[in-house]
């Protein structure tokens, strides 16, 4: 799309038209090399003053994101919170059809020094709900490798989170099931708080679609037009990529997987992915779509060219273990129509969570696993991460 426009601009510049000789455009903000995150204003200046400008188009990272037909030419876009370079290009067109363009590249943040505060956070869900509200830090006891820890930060409820919604878009989701699941995802995003953000990742035997982190539901569906359910299933690979996309995000991190969990085409074993999950506290929820044969009382026991039945059972077991270790849970559903209500319950759960921070007093060395136990006063049962890998 952009190339023909630019080509046209070059051709028009070659023509002896008054507008073509005079029309100029410049991006005032952001400046070249500037580091940007989240909502960003792009201010555009078109000259000469009084030029009969028809429209100014804005492209961000090669995607046409907006058109402004009257001055001041100003756009606000959300570029997400990934530490990434971005390319902005504006194309102005006047009444004679002449065009002019300008571009700016922003930079990634260069991290020269990491600040190690060694704060370990636990995301705590009180099971059952009754008596869950109104707890104080004194109601909790954290044991790191069996040693009681002092709780230094204590928050509840509206702590912002960043989530990846990882949806299976394989052949098994044909017949409108993918669309129904996506409707559930959209209602999840609509119910989020202002500072919460989500990325949608669709996968089959490979990654099919990845949106930026956003809190705007429409951004999630921008590119969905061409995405149809098809292909196999590489759950492990997709979970790994989702974890990595969450890695440099700050605060509470959540990964919601919607899949029957049967991995066929992954190149990575779930055991390796689980080790990555152990390093970074991401709460993993698995909306497990029960297979037809399970509903009939059989266990899904099958082999593929990649794994025998025991291999498939092992991978599924590792995924279960990863979910439970992360402090998340497995919600088994029979119909894709249940996705929306389960996502709502996950959102409710996130809003009810306690976030406890402590600075571990036990040091075993980088790369070692710490068992964490959380006790709650009274008869309440709490669910949280079962440990972490020391950095």
């Amino acid at each position, binding site marked *: 799309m952009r190339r023909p426009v630019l080509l046209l601009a070059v051709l028009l510049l070659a023509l002896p038209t008054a507008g073509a000789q005079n029309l100029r455009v410049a991006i005032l903000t952001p400046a070249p090399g500037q580091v940007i995150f989240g909502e960003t204003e792009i201010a555009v200046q078109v000259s000469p003053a009084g030029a009969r400008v028809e429209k100014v188009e804005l492209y961000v990272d090669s995607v046409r994101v907006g058109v402004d037909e009257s001055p001041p030419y100003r756009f606000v876009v959300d570029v997400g919170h990934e530490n990434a370079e971005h390319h902005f290009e504006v194309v102005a067109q006047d009444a004679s059809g002449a065009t002019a363009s300008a571009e700016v590249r922003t930079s990634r943040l260069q991290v020269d020094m990491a600040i190690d505060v060694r704060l370990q956070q636990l995301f705590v869900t009180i099971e059952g709900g009754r008596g869950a509200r109104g707890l104080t830090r004194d109601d909790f006891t954290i044991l790191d490798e069996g040693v009681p820890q002092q709780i230094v930060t204590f928050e509840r409820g509206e702590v912002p989170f960043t989530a990846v919604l990882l949806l299976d878009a394989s052949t098994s989701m044909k017949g409108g099931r993918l669309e129904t699941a996506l409707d559930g995802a959209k209602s999840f995003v609509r119910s989020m708080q202002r500072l919460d953000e989500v990325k949608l990742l669709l996968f089959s035997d490979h990654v099919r679609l990845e949106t930026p982190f956003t809190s705007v539901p429409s951004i999630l569906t921008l590119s969905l037009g061409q995405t149809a359910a098809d292909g196999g299933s590489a759950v492990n690979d997709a979970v*790994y990529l989702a974890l990595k996309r969450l890695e440099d995000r700050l605060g509470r991190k959540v990964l919601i997987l919607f899949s029957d969990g049967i991995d066929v085409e992954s*190149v990575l074993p779930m055991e*390796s992915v689980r080790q*990555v999950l152990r390093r970074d506290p991401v709460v993993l929820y698995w909306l497990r779509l029960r297979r037809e044969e399970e509903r009939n009382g*059989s266990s899904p026991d099958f082999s593929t060219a990649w794994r025998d039945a025991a291999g498939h059972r092992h991978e599924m077991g590792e995924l279960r273990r990863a979910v439970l270790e992360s402090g998340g849970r497995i919600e088994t559903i029979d119909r894709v129509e249940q996705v929306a209500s389960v996502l709502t319950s996950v959102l409710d759960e996130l809003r009810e969570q306690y976030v406890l921070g402590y600075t571990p007093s036990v040091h075993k060395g980088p790369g070692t696993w710490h068992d964490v136990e959380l006790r709650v006063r009274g008869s309440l049962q709490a669910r949280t991460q079962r440990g972490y890998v020391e950095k």
Partner: protein
Amino acid sequence: MRLVLIVLLAVLSVAWPAGAQAPAGEAAVRVLPSGGLQVESAALLMSGQEGGVIPLAALALPLPGESERARVPVIVEIDGSGLLAGHREPRLRLEVSVYALTAGGGIQGSRMDMIEIDLARMREAVEGSGVQLTGELTLRPGDYTLRVLVRDLETGDIGLRSLPLSVPAFRQASPALLPPVFAAPSAEAWVTARAAGSSPLALSGLSGPPVAKPVLALDEEARFAVAGSHLAAGDLAARAEVWKPGGERAADFPARLSGRQPGPAGLEVLSLAFTPSGLAPGEYELRVSIPRASSPGTRFVLVAAAEGGRVWAQLDARGSKPAARSAAASPPPAPPKKRFGNAAPVRKAYREALERLARGDEEAARAAVFQLESSLLSGKNRLTPEDLSEIELEVAHKLAETGPESLVPVAILHQRIYRDSAGRQPLLAVHSRELVLQLADLYAKRGGTPAARAMAARFILGLAAELVKTAPSSVRSRVFQRALDLDAENEAALLCRAVDFERQSKPAEAVSTLELLLRSHPQNGEARLRLALNVERLGRKGEARRLLQEIVAGQPEPWQLALAYQELGRMLVADGDLEAAERALREGLKRLPDDEKLTLQLAMIHELRQSPEQASEALQPLRPGTGESARRRYNRMPTELLDEVWSGLVRAADERRASLAAALGSAP
């Protein structure tokens, strides 16, 4: 007499018929989860068609459950007399699928089980009567059609039956009767098996366990039980109504009530008896009526008094046959000959359709044969697929006598009908598939040359292009083996057979098949890649790595190259040689820069080195992809090869139309 439900903890209950050996080691009869219904099986069940070559009977008995849903034990009886003809495997494996469908065609309950029987120990018992499986569904109150499919996983033979099922609303106060239940003549009458999660049914006070289709003797009192709920108190005047299968009442007898006792889950059990008389031997349905209630029907077979004391599978069409046969003493007999009326009109219509084919009007010919076969396999006066095949093969034999090449367009015609009917008309699809296999045998035999055998193998593989999409793996295996029996070096058949072995987790068999393939077709890159992966599964790691290195040194297809690098990287990581793995993956990424899996593997190497930041950096360029990944391609059948075979066959059929015309002209 009291209906007693006993829940056993064991998942399997097996009765050993007289003459069967006691089990040693692994059970001689096992019931396994089937691992999911195949598309073809589902299509057969949903089609509403009945027939097939495996005779079977079924009875469902709804019982009150813990919730509103009823527990519905289903007894399926499978005739064993002709079942083992042509079996080469030491085990008989039967897939039994049961669907409960609403009037609108919705599936309200289903189960799929696989019965596996060790023939070394059980052959005689299976042939003596057959197999009885008890499974269980849970269903809401309502009217259903119960559809039962039995498939022999070695031969591909099927049997399909439908029966009405009414599940009473036990919690409502209105009276309800269940179907009459009869006992087997002896506890060992059938080789019995019970599916996981199903409770056994036992009838206390009768001489054996319940059967699906009892055999009653003329003029002899038959005792049975009927369970019901909310029945009127006091003496009940019960009647036994005998109906013909077509829905016409045949006779009405008084039923003697000898007792009524409380049964399980609030049911009451009536002990009844009646004496059928004045009826011709044959098959009927028994319904019981009492004031304000009548029962659904139970099928039974009525025989002369001398033929009683058996199960239905021990009788032939005339109502008698030896009770048990010794496999050691004589080979298993062929299934009972099916009867059909005048075959001449069918033969004539079939020939006329072939004449159209010979004239080049393939579409009209196909439509005519499609319509002919569809109408003959369904409807009131339908033929069995065996009967229809016999008539069509008779025509084919005559054509082959004149010139075997005339069979090529005929075989392709039936393959096209198979493609048209697969998933839509399952019985027709199965018939077409079996007919093509028989035409291939006929062509090979008539041609008598290696070239003829190779062409016959291609007939069979032409089927496979469609078959791999819908048919169960057992049918696929059989088809590929049939092709290889005709042409041991057939490239497509060997590769497909190897993939089938892989998918069944049989690497040793896959390796030997692939080695055979590479001896005759050393240029086959896919075979070389699959060989590498399967020798690794056998523990021959060095050999696997060497084979993969040979592949990446060449110029294979892109998906094969990607997989060779991915697997090389995976093997090196598993061996702990991260440096060599990284080298291999980077080399792969140079040649295939957009390969998602190589990128993920490279990132994971950084994770293993505790460098998550480098891993993130490696993942930075990863973008969503399109199309089919190499790993997906590996997990499916090489359909491209099969499509090539099909295209070649279509050309060959066009070239041989003149042979067909000549054969039709000279064959009477």
